[in-house]
């Protein structure tokens, strides 16, 4: 993706985005995630709300991953990335973070996203992914989503909802960093401000 100064139409589109509620962005994220084709939008909304609530309620925990910074995030369409091997690492893309800060000022969203908060949110976001890959947290998220795929008497098997962990991570970042709105709003605005250049055609990096 390449950053371009938002024109009048792009600015209007971003203002329209700001008028949506945060859960709607979660619904869009799920709808963009393969395996949810044909799902009832109301079901997606219920899952988005549950994942959002789960992420908000997660107790803050310090990330053990090392943090590195690099350029080229806009070309990849990424703001941050977590990789578990060879050592858990959070990679922050500085060009995307810079654009996010510029956009926040230009759109007058500074009261929602204080200076430097996007960087902190990115670290908090990726820390949730780290937690959701180990131990109890992923089981709790499954229970919160209540997606039962098999029942046998009293026993229930809960299914995985692809994309729900991403909503939880954004929601946790919002709460942990004291943001006024979900980072997903800023993400959608960034996508509008940046022109597609590279990336996977299925529309999601994650």
């Amino acid at each position, binding site marked *: *993706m390449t950053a371009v100064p938002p024109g009048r139409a792009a600015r209007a589109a971003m203002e329209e985005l700001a008028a949506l509620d945060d859960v709607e*962005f979660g619904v*869009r*994220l799920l*709808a*963009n*995630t*393969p*395996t949810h*084709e*044909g799902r009832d939008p109301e079901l997606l909304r219920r899952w988005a709300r549950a994942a959002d609530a789960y992420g908000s309620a997660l107790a803050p925990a310090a990330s053990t991953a090392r943090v590195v910074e690099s350029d080229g995030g806009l070309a990849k*369409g*990424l*703001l*941050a*990335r*977590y*990789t*578990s*091997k*060879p050592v858990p690492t959070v990679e922050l893309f500085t060009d*995307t973070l810079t654009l996010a800060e510029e956009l926040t000022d230009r759109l007058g969203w500074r009261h929602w996203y204080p200076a430097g908060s996007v960087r902190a949110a*990115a670290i908090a*976001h*990726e820390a949730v*992914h780290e937690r959701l*890959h180990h131990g109890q947290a*992923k*089981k709790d998220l*499954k229970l919160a989503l209540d*997606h039962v*795929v098999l029942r046998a008497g009293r026993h229930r*098997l809960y*299914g*995985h*909802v*692809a*994309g729900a*962990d*991403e909503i939880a*991570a954004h929601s946790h970042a919002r709460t942990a960093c004291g943001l006024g709105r979900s*980072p*997903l*709003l800023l*993400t*959608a605005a*960034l*996508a509008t401000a*940046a022109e597609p250049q*590279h*990336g*996977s*055609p*299925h*529309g*999601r*990096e*994650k």
Partner: protein
Amino acid sequence: MGVVILLVMAAGVAAMLTRRLPTAFALVILAVVIAFVAGAPLTGENSVLDTVVQGGAPMLAATMIAILLGSWLGRLLDETGIAGTLVRKIVEFGGDRPVVVALGVLAVSTLVGTVTGSAPAAMLAGIIGIPAMIAVGIPKVTAAGTILMGIAAGMPFELPIWQFFSTALELPVDTVRGFMMKLFPFALAAAVLFVLVETRRRGVEHAWSLRSASAAPVSRRRQLGDAPWYALLTPLVPLVLALGFEVAILPSMLAGVLYALVTTTRPREMNKRLLRTLYGAFEVAAAPIVLFIAIGILLAAVKLPGAVESLEPLVKAVSPQNPVLFVVVFTLLVPLCLYRGPLNVYGLGAGIAGVLIAAGIYPAVAVLGLATSYNQVFGVSDPTSTQTVWSAQYAGVTPQQVMLRTLPYVWAVALGGFCVTAASYL
């Protein structure tokens, strides 16, 4: 004369490698030039026009029909939501364990690989499978490789491939099936190993993507619900009939088409769906069918008496007869089946196989062992093959990255195939 033919072949490979000519066109030109160099007359017995062009073009007709039926079944798996449902169920049941999801998608790809090949097979399993794997944290190169390794694991059961090798190498289908059964464990073990090792080595990856919160695109897939559970057995139908009941290839595939239809479609919509998917299948099958026409023409050319006489001493001199040397030499030559190289069985490799048999250098079944082993490498790692290009690009990586990651595994499969060939048939 043999040296001239080899030089002509080298020029053909160069034209394919540099992409100056599409493979099919290059093979036809190559065939005609080889025929002339071998002293074939323009018309009459063992001639350029009557034997090579007229006789060669329909030589692999049965394979072409099998390819068309495979593509038809593939279209049905897509349109009826069978392939998508399989992947969705896997993600729902195993999604919090990336390795389980990858193994599940691998299993679906293997099933799809038994039905159809090349890019359509990759699309069937990958359109949902690749992003679904990425969504649960599988790195992109591993996701693309999983689809390709899965399809390759299904390849020993792909009925159109049985038909191809049976016709091209003039072997009974039973013989082809027998060797494929021996090759399958290597292909499956490599595929499972790829998923286990690569997911462990590379761990998981999650990214904050700018596209994640964009408005969802409206697609036809959105309209598809889940296919019923019994429809999900469709890919097994041709396989069970051909393997278990020894029904011929084309009727087995037709049975798969009918099963997919009756388990997913209301009676009044059947005719429409059958025709729509059949016409769509022609589009999908066009490229491989053109290639098989060209391969037939090339095979007819290299089997001309003049070509066989010229090539026999040369090929004999460089072909190892000792079983150990056979394994070592052909294993070292594996990279020559990449980048449309001379050992690509859907290119000049088919011609070389024809020479090896026609000149009596190896028994036909040993050539089958060579060709199918190289096919396992080509089917996964060749950065110019349509399934590899599609999978890599769809995952957002380069075909070369996928080649480097998968090559050690499929090289090992080829080694296994050569060992079996040397032990059983030399």
